[in-house]
């Protein structure tokens, strides 16, 4: 009888509607739930894996050809899925890991963060007025599809960067008026205004040269079968899971390439990436967590490469972004938005040394400015750092007439590392007279709130670029495309524009030092620490290198004999 009862409970009709209804509800809930559930940040290396013992970079060394064997497939565990494999359209940091094996650039970055020629033969010759760059090109280079690399191919790629709908490269390239090709081995770029960051841009995705035949054939769908010049060529991609590249025999330096293939496997959880590294299922893993790194460093079969990021982690204060990004500036009207003394007080309440030591086990470096000490543009002025002083912070709050504890809300990403940081900050700033309320949200929601100006304080980082302009201008210039603080200072604008247009390095160094001094008075962004990219590498593998741009160099690696 009981059996009959249980049968009735699951009678067709009612049950089916219920199940389908539950199904729809579960999916809907899952969707809504994302607004407040943990997630690894995609497309940004901010927060997590922020790292390592002060000043000790371990870049890895190039492979000694005598010690490596030919062949084998390298598996790299990547923390996030790259977006489109199209250098013009790509925006995610992770696509650069894959591009470096199959799309060489006009220039590359050396371990010392200095620019070196890659598909060019020398650094560009810049005319006296700064309006013309002449780039000499390598000869005898073939694309993976057999086409010849020449100045015309460079011109087609650069024009595509400048004109393709949705191009992420246009703003990086600056005020280019024309691209000329006097002969197959020379490209001349003409500018309407001098634009110093251009060469550095050509050492990133804007400098990648696409096969003109593939561009003609695939157009905007280039990412489905990308073809460039590189040690490896694209083989296959399983969406959100893996990308495979295989050795290109046509590559001009093919003798230096030891591996047969590289497979990038997307594993978003950092502890599972570490486990894959230890089990040998992957031989390289990026963005190790600061919690896993010490254990891996003790592991005999694994070494940990470290490179300090050119970016930073900071707190953005909403000063004039009440209307949302891209709209006329409007003050939020709160004491912290109106009075720089309140912002200075907040900056003084943060004990960066303690933060780096307690939260990341000393695996990190303090940052007080957007200029990395590893940058060619650093100076004493750019590295000046006001000392932690909660008493002075309280005094400043009193001067500003703000009753303490002063309550401020901070929006932060809801991944575990960001939350730990937020809680540490909460405890710290209490001493300086602040009551910090943490508002955790999911990454995409965080970006949305940031652009709408729906925040008082916001914790987010920037992964960093070689040229300081790309780390400063967008964020604090009045017209900066990511000026989410809504900051506007004619002095800073002038300094940044002068620095951007100057071709004299010493002059630029001085100008950026002055920018930093001004930023530390106004505090639209409180810079806190600089993350260190931690990469785990199996000791069976030789020749893996990580440079300050954060890109893992796998192309010339090989398995040990």
């Amino acid at each position: 009888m009981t059996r009959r009862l249980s049968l009735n409970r699951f009678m067709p009709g009612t049950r089916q509607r219920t199940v389908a209804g539950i199904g729809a509800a579960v999916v809907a809930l899952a969707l809504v739930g994302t607004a407040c559930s943990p997630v690894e940040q995609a497309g940004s290396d901010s927060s997590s894996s922020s790292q390592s013992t002060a000043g000790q970079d371990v870049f890895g060394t190039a492979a000694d050809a005598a010690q490596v064997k030919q062949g084998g497939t390298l598996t790299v565990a990547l923390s996030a899925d790259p977006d489109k494999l199209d250098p013009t359209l790509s925006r995610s940091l992770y696509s650069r890991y894959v591009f470096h094996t199959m799309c060489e650039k006009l220039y590359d970055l050396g371990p010392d963060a200095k620019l070196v020629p890659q598909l060019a033969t020398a650094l560009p010759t810049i005319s006296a007025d700064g309006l013309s760059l002449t780039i000499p090109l390598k000869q005898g280079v073939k694309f993976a599809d057999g086409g010849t690399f020449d100045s015309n191919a460079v011109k087609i790629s650069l024009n595509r960067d400048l004109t393709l709908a949705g191009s992420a490269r246009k703003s990086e390239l600056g005020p280019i008026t024309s691209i000329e090709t006097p002969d197959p081995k020379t490209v001349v770029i003409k500018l309407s205004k001098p634009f110093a960051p251009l060469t550095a841009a050509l050492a990133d995705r804007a400098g990648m040269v696409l096969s003109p035949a593939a561009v003609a054939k695939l157009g905007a769908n280039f990412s489905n079968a990308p073809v460039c010049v590189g040690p490896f060529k694209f083989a296959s991609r399983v969406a959100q899971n893996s990308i495979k590249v295989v050795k290109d025999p046509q590559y001009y330096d093919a003798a230096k390439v030891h591996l047969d293939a590289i497979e990038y496997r997307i594993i978003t959880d950092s502890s599972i990436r570490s486990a894959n590294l230890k089990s040998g299922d992957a031989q390289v893993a990026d963005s190790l967590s600061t919690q896993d790194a010490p254990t891996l460093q003790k592991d005999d079969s694994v070494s940990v490469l470290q490179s300090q990021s050119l970016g930073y982690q900071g707190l953005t204060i909403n000063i004039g972004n009440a209307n949302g990004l891209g709209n006329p500036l409007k003050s939020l009207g709160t004491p912290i938005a109106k009075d720089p003394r309140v912002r200075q007080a907040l900056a003084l309440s943060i004990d960066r040394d303690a933060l780096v030591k307690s939260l990341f086990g000393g695996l990190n470096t303090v940052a007080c400015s957007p200029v990395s000490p590893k940058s060619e543009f650093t100076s004493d002025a750019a590295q000046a750092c006001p000392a932690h002083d909660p008493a002075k912070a309280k005094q400043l709050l009193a001067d500003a007439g703000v009753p303490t504890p002063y309550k401020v809300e901070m929006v932060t990403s809801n991944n575990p590392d960001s939350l730990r940081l937020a809680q540490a900050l909460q405890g710290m700033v209490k001493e300086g007279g602040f009551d910090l309320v943490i508002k955790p949200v999911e990454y995409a929601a965080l970006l949305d709130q940031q652009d709408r100006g729906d925040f008082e304080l916001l914790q987010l980082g920037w992964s960093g670029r070689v040229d300081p302009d790309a780390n400063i201008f967008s964020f604090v210039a009045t017209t900066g495309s990511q000026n989410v603080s809504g900051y506007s200072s004619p002095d800073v604008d002038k300094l940044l524009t002068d620095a951007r247009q100057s071709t004299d390095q010493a002059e630029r160094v001085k100008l950026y030092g002055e920018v930093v001094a001004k930023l530390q008075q106004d505090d639209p962004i409180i810079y806190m620490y600089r993350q260190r990219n931690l990469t785990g590498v199996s000791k069976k593998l030789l020749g893996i290198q990580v440079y300050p741009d954060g890109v893992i160099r796998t192309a010339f690696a090989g398995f040990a004999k």
Partner: protein
Amino acid sequence: MRRYLLNRLWQSLVTLVLATIVVFVGVRALPGDPALALAGEERDPESLRAIRQQYGLDQSWLVQFWKFVSHAARGDLGESIRTGTPVRSMILSALPVTIELSVLAIVIASVIGVGAGVLAAVRRGGPAEWAANGLALLGLSVPHFWLGLMAILYLSVALGLFPASGFVPFFTNPVANLHHLILPAVILGTGLAAVIMRQTRSSMLDALSADYIRTAEAKGLPPKAVIGKHALRNSLIVVVTIVGLQLGALISGAVVTERIFALPGFGKLTVDAVFQRDYPVIQAVVLVTATAYIVINLLVDLLYSVIDPRIRVRGEA
């Protein structure tokens, strides 16, 4: 039977349309959009505008919905905003992985669950029942994520018995394929095995105390035949229902399991698409999932009538 079937199909269609609308609106009600998620840290208002325009995100919801539905009706599910890959091919490559994983999980869960359930019912009150109940409690309460991590740490890293990640298609290398899938399938099947065990146990207990079993025993049938042929067969109907009902739980479990073991399956596809606000992928995935739900429920109902002819008779009445 035909009228009943037609009625069921009509209900299914309504459910499908409603699910599509709920997801279409729900995903757009989330803060952030594909342009923001795609642009990540490299975004400026101009390129955000360009991305939105390129994918028609600047059009009204009605226009976007009509486009999606009319294209989907022709079998065109659009392309992923993030990677530019056609959604159809993404789903076609992800579905077999999840189906294989789920089938394996169901098989493993059924073998363990039915076996333990029968044992617990037959050896009622003994240590076997205690052990089975304890395991079921563990299976239900331990999250997949933790269990997966432990399995990787101990079985993959320490003992090196199974690969910690990756996937080999069945037709490329069946042995490697099973080697890669067995651990995820066991992890995914744990919850289901526990549910099946408890259901089998309780329905077996009911069945064993029923009159027809006493009759069978009185006729002198050996215990094996009484348990296997009479009691178990009658208890299985509930188990089949449970497997059908648990399919939803299995798919949500697959989301976690696939992420842990980096399997290119449907669950991972779905959850990543949600985080990246990849509207075309989310919509298509939900459409396919809803369709699968409806078809599977229909199949389960049809299976009833195979197992128990009385249902077929009542359905026709």
